[in-house]
């Protein structure tokens, strides 16, 4: 149904900021925004994350994001057509974020860390990371959005053939902020990409990752943990698109939602006809900690090749009463036992992080959040 939508002040604000003269994707974005507005729950890909409503308390008007990077970008340039991903939010990030920051990771064991903060108005940015062929590098990101503000970030990562990138994302909890991070990862042949997320939710936070998987020995691993309290909302949406044969993908997402929080996992593995011998597996496990909490999941497979092994699993439930009973019998208080069980449940995806310091840092943050919850 394409009924004309009533645009909110924030949508009017975006339209004002978009120059009317733009062509190509800029013109499409404008038309899209005018006709449909921002994503809301009637839009299939956003059915559990109503961005439009979540933004109702955010003041329109641009306030640049605070980006602290471990080093200066190698280049700043106007976003080219190749830098822009499809979708309203990443396009807005490209159109309204000013010059895109381009980082080139060219040395072995290069580490880039990005710390992005927002606390008022709406902020956008587009970041491009190129990883040179054959090297191993790291990308550590941290997002903190406080007060009623929106941070909208698009990240484009290109891995040369045989390159390895390990990416970690830490999303700090917030009651009022709205965060949208849309990333697109393009892998060269034989490349390896590993991503681990730890998220605590916000008024609405969406971490969306699209991976273009060429097959041919390339490997992708996506993992994530979330722990949500209050009325926080975290949406982790992933798409791994296998375009060539012999690719491998592993996904493991685990999360817990307490109070009146809501966790969303939408995972999709798409396998093209050419992507024979794809081996893909996706798991999501969610734990509900209290009566008002909710977890929604959509683990999706779209498969056009016959000689593949693809599987997905999803399990939702509560803490295992038997395990709780066992621990209490051993003299632990119920609170302690619950915390320990929840921690061990949520720590598993983080174990994949290779760098010990980063891993311990994230585990410690998980523990602190758990203590605050109990």
């Amino acid at each position, binding site marked *: *149904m394409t009924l004309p939508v009533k645009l909110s002040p924030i949508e009017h604000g975006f339209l004002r900021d978009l120059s009317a003269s733009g062509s190509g994707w800029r013109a499409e974005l404008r038309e899209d925004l005018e006709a449909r507005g921002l994503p809301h729950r009637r839009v*299939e890909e956003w059915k*559990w994350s109503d961005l439009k409503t979540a933004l109702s308390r955010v003041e329109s008007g641009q306030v640049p994001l605070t980006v602290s990077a471990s080093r200066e970008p190698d280049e700043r340039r106007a976003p080219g057509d190749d830098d822009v991903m499809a979708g309203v939010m990443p396009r807005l990030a490209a159109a309204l974020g000013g010059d895109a920051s381009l980082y080139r990771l060219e040395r072995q064991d290069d580490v880039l860390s990005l710390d992005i903060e927002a606390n008022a108005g709406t902020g956008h940015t587009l970041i491009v990371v190129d990883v040179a062929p054959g090297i191993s590098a790291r990308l550590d990101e941290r997002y903190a959005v406080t007060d009623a503000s929106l941070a909208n970030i698009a990240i484009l990562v290109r891995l040369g053939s045989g390159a390895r990138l390990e990416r970690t994302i830490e999303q700090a909890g917030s009651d009022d902020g709205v965060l949208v991070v849309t990333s697109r990862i393009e892998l060269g042949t034989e490349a390896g990409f590993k991503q681990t997320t730890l998220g605590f939710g916000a008024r609405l936070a969406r971490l969306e990752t699209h991976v273009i998987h060429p097959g041919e020995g390339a490997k992708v691993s996506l993992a994530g943990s979330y722990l949500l309290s209050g009325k926080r909302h975290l949406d982790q949406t992933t798409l791994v698109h296998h375009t060539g044969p012999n690719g491998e993908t592993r996904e493991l997402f685990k999360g817990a939602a307490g109070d009146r929080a809501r966790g969303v996992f939408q995972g999709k593995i798409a396998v093209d*006809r050419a992507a*024979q011998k794809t081996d893909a597996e996706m798991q999501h496990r*969610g*734990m*509900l*900690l*209290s*009566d008002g*909490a*909710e*977890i*929604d*999941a*959509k*683990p*999706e*497979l*779209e*498969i*056009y*090749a*016959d*000689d*593949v*092994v*693809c*599987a*997905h*699993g*999803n*399990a*939702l*439930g*509560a803490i295992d009463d038997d395990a709780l009973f066992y621990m209490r019998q051993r003299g632990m208080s119920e609170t302690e036992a619950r915390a320990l069980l929840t921690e061990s449940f949520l720590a598993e995806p983080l174990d994949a992080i290779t760098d010990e310091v980063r891993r311990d840092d994230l585990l410690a943050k998980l523990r602190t959040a758990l203590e605050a919850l109990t």
Partner: protein
Amino acid sequence: MPAVKETIEDVKKLESDKYKYGFTTEIEQEYAPKGLDEDTVRFISAKKNEPDWMLDWRLDAYRRWTKMTEPDWAKVKYPPIDYQDAIYYAAPKTGAKYKSLDEVPKELLDTYEKLGIPLREAEVLLGVEGAEDKTAAEAREKPKVAVDAVFDSVSVATTFKAELKKAGVIFMSISEALQEYPELVRQYLGSVVPPTDNFFATLNSAVFSDGSFVYIPEGVRCPMELSTYFRMNAQGTGQFERTLIIADKGAYVSYLEGCTAPMRDEHQLHAAVVELVALDDSEIKYSTVQNWWPGDAEGKGGVYNFVTKRADCRGRNSKVSWTQVETGSAITWKYPSCVLRGDNSQGEFYSIAVTNGRQQADTGTKMIHLGKNTKSRIISKGISAGRSDQTYRGLVSIHKNATGARNFTQCDSLLIGDECGAHTVPYIEAKTPKAVLEHEATTSKLSEEQLFYARQRGLGEEAAVALLVNGFCREVIQELPMEFAVEAQSLLKVSLEGSVG
């Protein structure tokens, strides 16, 4: 891969002669004028001599339908349907109702005979009890199945009515039920699938022509299987049947549904609505073998099967089980669902869907858990071959008050050949920590090792594939009533014939 090439060739060879139900019956028929407007709705209602409230109900639905848009979210592609280019009512001319089987024209009886539904035999076996020892003995051995035979827009015969009546079971066409039990129909019709539900259900509410009505009174276990056999015959018509089954407290019924259509070059629309109501402690088992004409290997012709099936487990401890074997139709859009309202109620969905040629199927189930300790189980087996596309689309939703709810879902897909697609789109929503949900899905191809093993033991290629596919579907076939299980197994074999090189 030479096997792939062979597969393509074999699929091309898959001629329509594999579909043995593709014949047409030459019989004089009466039609509604082509097209759809309020007069069409009035025409159908008048033909059936319906009470005024029924006509108003239909007209309301029609007016609403004109303001609705066709859903486009399913993963199926078809050219726009011209709803004015179809005939919404077709019936054999000799009269819509036959008092007894003797009045039924021979052409019709022959048609059902050809389809393997011997209406006369069933009745005769019962009628001539003891007349001939042998026949009677056979009759006792063979489990009885009462059949309601629907030919295009009307029900032509219902067997074993008298015997069922003795048990208190009402089994008749919904047009008859509207005459004989209008209050019962009025109470339940549209209470599970309201006329406003969705585009196709609303269309059905406006123009439904016939279908079966079943009422099992309190405490009665229906003495035999009930079955409806749907046959589309007339050209350029759609079939819009409506089935309503009510199991009162403590009742049990097993109901079977079969469908076939002639081979035609044009597409035919089938938009049915099935409503099940299960009251306290009752159980309904609903099995379908859907074998509508799927179109030829190039996708010419075939039935568009846009069906809304829903069960309302209204009572405590009620149970509804959907079992479906889907092999036909050019396009399937169908999600038999259970609303688990009563505490401790249970819903089950067992499905085998086979697509070959150019078929497209978007099918699955919805389990809506509202009551406490409700349980649901979903086993879906999808087999895609040829150039077909198949999607499992399901929803499991656990509401806040559904404490102690439990769901287990398993969706497995099998791909045969590299030109087909298999997709899984499950939606899972949990709103209480006191529920447990598990979902598993796999997609794979027939194992070369298993095929090799079976062939080494002397089985031909196709027999080996049939054996493995049957094994893959075992959990669902087990749930089918005996006669259907046999039919389903042979259907699977026929549907996949020529799909493996």
